[in-house]
């Protein structure tokens, strides 16, 4: 089985020399556990031949690059900012509407009515699928995060889009990673996503009397149940490090 490295120290050996090509991975975790950092470490460790795309829904593009530079990860990746697009097309419009409702439509807008372009309603999922269709084989994809999609779109449509991404990953020699914050969703959503993906990784940040216990688990590995296991993890200047096996 051909695999690609995750870039996370000691994790590749716990998997099968990394992530098998064609696999889709779900990385879920508690808030503050470091899943976004993992996502960046993963994309920054892409092989030269991999077309690396990072789709973000919450962060600013420059913040992503700066974080990756701080850890000395490769930044020759494509960043697609769905969050900014959403802001520009949906939220910004709402801000204008509230201004117009409060102050009235300005005369300048009235005098050139034909120039006012009603932008097509933004369908995030269509935009996402379009970006996926642009990926060249072999590719490495990160989608951070599913939370944004589930909170703005109908659950069944999100699941259906994820299935499309999974198939594309399978047939186009790619690897894809989705992030999701746990405990926020009804179990039907969680299990819907878990059923689609080939590998499930989780990160947990558990408060103890003296600090935090950071637990990393391989919860699912398609056709390799022997790989399922629990680990500890920590952070260094190079990023996330997986520690001893329990």
């Amino acid at each position, binding site marked *: 089985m051909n695999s690609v490295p995750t870039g996370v120290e000691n994790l590749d050996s716990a998997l099968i020399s990394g992530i098998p090509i064609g696999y889709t991975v779900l990385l879920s975790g508690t808030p503050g556990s470091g899943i976004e950092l993992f996502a960046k470490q993963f994309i920054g460790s892409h092989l030269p031949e991999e077309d690396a795309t990072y789709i973000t829904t919450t962060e600013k593009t420059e913040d992503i690059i700066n974080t990756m530079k701080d850890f000395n990860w490769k930044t020759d990746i494509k960043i697609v900012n769905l969050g900014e697009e959403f802001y520009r097309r949906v939220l910004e419009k709402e801000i204008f*509407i509230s201004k*117009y*409702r409060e102050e*009235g*439509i300005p*005369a300048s*807008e*009235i005098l050139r*009515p034909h120039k*006012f372009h009603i932008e097509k309603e933004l369908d995030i999922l269509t935009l996402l699928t379009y970006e996926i269709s642009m990926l060249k084989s072999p590719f490495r994809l990160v989608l951070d995060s599913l939370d944004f999609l589930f909170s703005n779109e109908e659950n069944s449509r999100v699941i259906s889009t994820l299935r499309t991404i999974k198939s594309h990953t399978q047939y186009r020699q790619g690897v894809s990673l989705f992030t999701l914050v746990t405990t926020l969703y009804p179990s039907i959503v969680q299990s819907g996503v878990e059923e689609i993906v080939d590998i499930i990784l989780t990160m947990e940040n558990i408060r103890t009397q003296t600090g935090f216990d950071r637990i990393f688990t391989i919860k699912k590995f398609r056709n390799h149940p022997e790989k399922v296991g629990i680990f500890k993890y920590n952070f260094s200047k190079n990023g996330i490090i997986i520690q001893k096996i329990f």
Partner: protein
Amino acid sequence: MEKVRERCLTGIEALDNILNGGIPKGNTVLITGSAGTGKTTLSIEFLVHGAMKGEKGLYISVTEASEKLLENLIVYDFFSKEMIQKGIIFIDIPEIYEKLGMNKLQFSMEDINLLIENIVKIVTEFNVKRVVIDSITSICYRLQTEEKIMEFILRLSKALSELGCTTFLVSELLPSAKGYSQYGVEEAVSDGIILLGNLERRGDLLRTLRVVKMRGTSHSRATYVLDITSIGILLVPLLKGGGELI
């Protein structure tokens, strides 16, 4: 002695004669009739004649994109593109709806107020003297209740009248309508009613016009044959006998 109200000449000579010198300034007139009877043509001509005298016109298009409407109107001799740019402001109401976030099928009282405020704002800022809303029926459709329709028309016509504006409300009469308007209330709150119709006589379909009501002036209530020619609307008395109004 009754004070003679200042008049607003429609510019359609025969109509001004029927009205004994034009429409009393500040009146809100319902231009009502079924499809193809010449309501829009009459209304545009009213604005064009105003523009020729230096009175600014405002055409609020509800059902048809004004761009398309203008293309169809160019055939008239009295109409030039220059006139549009200088004398008449064309607004597509969907753009107003969009800017004010009025995307619900049924408008709330707040939406209605905003719509009136914004129309009044345009009229004030551009010193508009003639307004056409084509059609009021399409706006009424989204107001739903008789109370809201009444409130909308009354408040709008009061505000426009105070600004010295004479207003045409184009009303689409469906075969199902009883009386002179689709919802019944439009005719009750208007200052005037001009009824346009079709008359079949000896195999010909004639257009007809009758002033049913006009506050502030005496007028003929006879039926006239309306001809749409390249020099505008012509009216001639309808010879009695034969034919059926449809």
